[in-house]
Structure formats: C-alpha cells, structure tokens
C-alpha cells in the first residue's frame, strides 16, 4: 500500500507538476482568503499562503528529481558535482524569501494589533476612515 502511494507520487507518474500544482493551489487559497475574508488576521494569513505558494514554486524550479542536496562532500567531489546536485540558487533565494515573508507577517500582525486597539474591530470593511 505504501509502495503504491509511493509509486503514485513518484515523478514517473506525476512529475514535478505536483509541486507546481500545489504552489498554484496555495497561491489561489491565499488569494481567496485575501480577497474574501473580512478579518484582518485571516487576510494576513492569506498573505503568508500566497508567499508560501511562491516559495514552493521557486524551490520546485530548482529541484531535480533524484539528485542530492547541494552540499559538497567527498563523494560529490569525485564526480561532476554540477550534474549530481540540485540547483542551489533557488534554495538560497527561498531562504531569503521566507525570512522576508516572516518579517512581513510580523509587521502585518503588529499593525493589526494597533488597529484592533484603536478601532475595536478587525473587519476590514469597517476600517476605512481614510478615503477619497
């Protein structure tokens, strides 16, 4: 059974598309939350969903099936490293992007706290004193 599941999810069946698909799904879920939910916290969470989606997309670009992590060790040094490891650049990018995402989320939540203090509500439709 577990073997079947493994086969099912192996690249020969689904390929990297599953990662692309799930990143799109994450993106759309996030977009849905951002556009439909009225609660500021949920919107902030939606933003993180979107970010996760993009991060997943970015990392799956660099991922090559069946290759190892881009960490130089002795075995890798023997052959041609560039053909045996996955692209290290996206991973570095994603690390950075995640950090940035965390910063944005923290920023968002701290602003949400202030908004809740001052307005007494988290409903985004009611927070529009600044307009026109």
């Amino acid at each position, binding site marked *: 059974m577990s073997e079947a599941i493994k086969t099912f999810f192996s690249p020969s069946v689904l390929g990297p598309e599953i990662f692309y698909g799930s990143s799109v799904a994450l993106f759309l879920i996030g977009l849905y939350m*951002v*556009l439909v939910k*009225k609660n500021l916290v949920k*919107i902030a969470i939606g933003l993180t969903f979107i970010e996760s989606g993009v991060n997943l997309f970015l990392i799956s670009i660099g991922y090559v099936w069946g290759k190892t992590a881009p960490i130089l060790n002795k075995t890798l040094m023997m052959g041609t490293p560039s053909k045996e490891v996955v692209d290290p650049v996206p991973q570095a990018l994603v690390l950075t992007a995640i950090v940035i995402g965390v910063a944005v989320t923290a920023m968002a939540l701290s602003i949400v706290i202030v908004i809740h203090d001052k307005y007494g509500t988290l409903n*985004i439709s009611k*927070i*529009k*004193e600044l*307009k*026109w």
Partner: protein
Amino acid sequence: MMKLLYFIGCFSGGALLAFLLGSFSPLLKKFITFLAVILGAVLFATMGTSTYQLSLLFGNQVIFGIDTLTQFMVWMTLGIAFIVSLVLWSHSELSPTFFALFLLNVLGTVLIFMSRDIVSFFFSWELMSWTAFGMILSDGWEKKRSAAVKYFMWSAAGAYMVLIGFSILFAATSAIRFENIVMSVGRVSHGWLITAIAFLVAGFGVKAAMMPFHVWAPDAYSESPHPFTGFFSGILSKTGVYGIFIAFFYLAARLEAVPMLRVHGTSIFGYIMVWIGAITAFGASLIAVHQEYGKKLLAWSSVSQLGYIIFAFGIADSLGMTGALSHALAHALFKALLFTILAGVIMRTGTDHMASLGGLIKRMPLSFIFAVVGGLALAGIPMTIGFTSKWIIYEAGINGGYIFPTTLIFAASTAAFLYYYRFVYSIFLGPLHEEHQNVKEVPATYWISYILLAIPIFYFGLYPGKLVGIISTILQSYNLPALTTYTATSVTTPLGTFNGMVVGLGFGAALIVGLIVYFIGGRVRKAASQTDKYLAGEVVTNEFELHYSVDFYRFLERKLSWLLKISAQKFYEFIGELIRFVADINRKMFFCGNGQAYLYYMTIVLTILILSIWRIKP
C-alpha cells in the same frame, strides 16, 4: 550675446531686487521697477536688429533675434510697460511680489517677440502667463478667485495647445528653430501641418481672447490689479496676435498652396478666422454694452477689439495684415489709456461701479479729457489711430468680399459708441454724487502717462501713412503682401483714400467756425446748482437721484436677450460639472478606502493582463 544677457539680467535682476528690497521701502520697489524698464528700453535700443544665441538645453543653441516686427512689438510693449511703471509710482500698496512679477512679465512678453525657436518661445510664453496670474494673486484674492483660476486654467490650456502644435511641427521637421521649420515644412504632410496650425491658432487664440476661448478674458482683465490692467489687456493679448501671425504667415506659409483648403480665395483657416473674429467683435461689444462695472465694460471691449484684429488677419491680404497690425498698436494705446484712467478713478473713488460714480468731470477734468480722447480712438473717430486702423480693416473686409462679417464688424463698431458713451457718461458726466464731493484729480504720474499715450494716438491718426509705412516695412521683411500706396498723411486702398491731415485740419477749421458762431451768440449764465435743471416745474433737491445710469440700455437688452442668452460660459460650466462628476466617481472608486478593494483591483488588473498574454503569438 552679452547685450541680450544684459537685457534679461536687467529685468530679472530688477525683479529680484524689487522682491528682496521692496519690503524695506516702498520707494525702492517703485524706483527699481521704473529704472529697470527704462534701462531695458535703453538696452533694447542699442541692440538693433540682430540675432543672439544662448546655450541652454543639451547644449542646443536657443535663438533670440530682433527684426522689424520684433522691434514694433517690443517698443509697443516697453512703451506700455513704461506707462505702467510710471503709474505705479502712485501705488505703494501693491506688494513687492507684484513689482517683481511685473518685471518678469514684461521680460517674458519681450522674449516672446524676440524668440526664434520653439523652446525659447514656449519658455517665454509660459513665463508671461504665470507671472500675470501671480500678479492677480498678489493683489488680494478673495473676490478674484474664480477669475484668477479661470485665467490660469485657460492660459495653461492655450499654452498646451501651442505646445502640441509646436511639438507636431518638431516631430515632423526635427527642427526647433523657426527658420529651419520653415525650410523643411515642405516635408510635413498636409494633415499634420493642418493639425499643428489648428492647435497653434487655437492656442494663441486663447490669449487673443478669440471666441469661443474668450471666457477668461473679461473676468481676468477686470480683476487684475488696476494699474496693470492696461498692460494685461493691451499687450499680453497681443502676444496671441503675434503668435497667430507667426503660425499663420510664417510657419505655415505653405498652407496657402493646398487647393482643397481654399475657400473664397484664401485658405479655409483665414475664412474661419474672419468669421470668428467678426463674431467675437460683434458678440463681445453687445455684451460690453450691458456691463454695470467699468472694468468689465472695458474688458469686454478688449475682447471685441481683438476680434477686429483676428478678422483682419483672416483676410490675409496686404490691407488685412496692415489693418491687423495697426489695430494691434491702436488697441494697445487706447486700451492702456482707458484702463489707466479707470485705475485713476478707482484710486480716487474706490469703485468702478458705474451707477455709483458720476459727475467727476468737475473734479477730474484731465481724466475726462483723456477719457474722451481714448474713447474717440476706441470708437474710431477720424484723427485718432483708432480710425486709421479700423478704416483699413473695413476696406480690407469689403475689398476681400467678406460682406457679412464686415457688416458684423460695422455693427460692433456702432455698439462701441454705445458702451463708450455709457462709460464716459456714467463716470464723468451727469450729477456728482454726494460722497465724491472731495475727490481730487489724479496725481501727476497719471496724467503724464495720459499725455504720453495721447500723443501717438493723435500722431498716427493725423499721419496714418507713417503707421502704414512702419507696418509695410515689417510685412515686406516677411515677404508678405504690403500696402505701398501711402504718403505721410494719407493712405490709399483700392477702394478709396483717407487723408488724416486734411480731416484734422478741416475739423480744426470747422471747430474754429463753430466757436466763432458760439461766441457770436449772447452771453450765458452759470447754473446755480447741480439740480438747477429743466424739470418742468418740479422742485428737486440734492438727495434726488438724477443719474440715469443703471440699466442704461435696458430697451436694447430686452430686445437682444435671446442673443445674449447664448453663452459659451454656460457650456464650459457644464463641461466643468461633468469633469467634477467624473472626478468624484473616479475618486470614490479607486480610493474608496477599503484595503480589500485595492487588492481586488490588483487581482483584476493582473488577471486582465495575464489573459491578454494569450493573444500574443509566439
């Protein structure tokens, strides 16, 4: 090169000094302004006809040049500027900013006439426009708000039309100098050339208060600071006239050759301008007849007189252009005179509401005399420059066969009598009001300026040939048809002759005969009092209002109300409402305040753009 820089420096330095030092001493700002104008005139006199280059933008040479037309216009400008700076001696209440902006304004105007390329022309043009706005602003605001904003808006719109016109010419010829544009204008396609010239003429037409772009002018003229109004209406409007001349006869000389554009022996532009000019002259003078305020009346009169100039330009033969240019000078002179007189009246009485004035002839006789002189010129009585130019314009209209526009122009001229008489009567004649018993004559700076303005008015009226001679030289230097049949005192057109000197001498003799006849008659008795009048036995006292001045031409107004109801103003107000409506919708939609809505907009834009990608073929 250096002389031009000195000239520019004279005015801009004067402006800077007046601005910085003016707040310390009112005398200083007046003195600096006066000195700068005189110095500028002296410098200009030494410049002769020459060309100057300045390196300004991307190392490009910006060209300023002086030819006969430039000299004509610049002397006109500097002359009226001198009058204003003279009159300003009596106006310490104006802020230093006003004086500084005035000098910059004169500079801008002069540079327009001197510029020989697109860049410097547009630069000077905008400089002239915004400094005038600044002057309206610097002299109090509250009641002038709509007038000033309207002026600024229209002059910006006009300037931008000019900019579009110029940029089309530039795009088509890749030249910024006028001479180069003229040389390569042959490469421009007809469509683009027509578009460019249409934009240019419309843009300049705004400044020249051409209907339907005139709505700003009456308000702006009447609300501008009183000593400056003469310059505003007399000179600044001439920049528009000059622009039309440049666009029409210099840059677009080739338009004449396009056969499909020819109507009635001239280009369709000319034909349209004749009609627009005639309608402007006629409509504006009918409106002027019904004004209750002196400045408004003169302001509408200005619009009307500029209509004459546009009419004459449209005719575009030797007579038309001579008429247009001479009327430009005539209008500058008599309108400056009349506005300056009105400024004096306002200075002494504090109002230009005609019903509140009256009988000032006893208190301000000099002002009255020159108001009559100005009025003679405005109404175009022979012996004044006003007749010289108007007569040429009429002959041009009839000679060119523009019978209906010419009729309108004639009617406009008759209407000029109506409003001019109302102006003089309501202010200077009739009974004197109680509160104006102690009004004094205007100070010397004023009446000196009156005299200075009256001299050329009569000179060119008696020697029409001199004026025509100057203008013929200008037109010949532009290779345009010029009127050549003139002597010093007379001008002959294909239709007839006018000899200013003979008319003048004749009238002088007739006046002497009249006086002789007058003195033959019995002695006269001085009236006992203001109310000592024939009133059929009625006893009236001083409190009784005998001044017939409100709604002077009410019967006329009643009959013409259908015509006066047609108002460009209302149309523009409608447009304004529409824009405001659109503006509010736009504001409330795109800046609705809901953060989520902004995200929606973002998503929508993204979706639309992404979807539109599929239309791209690989």
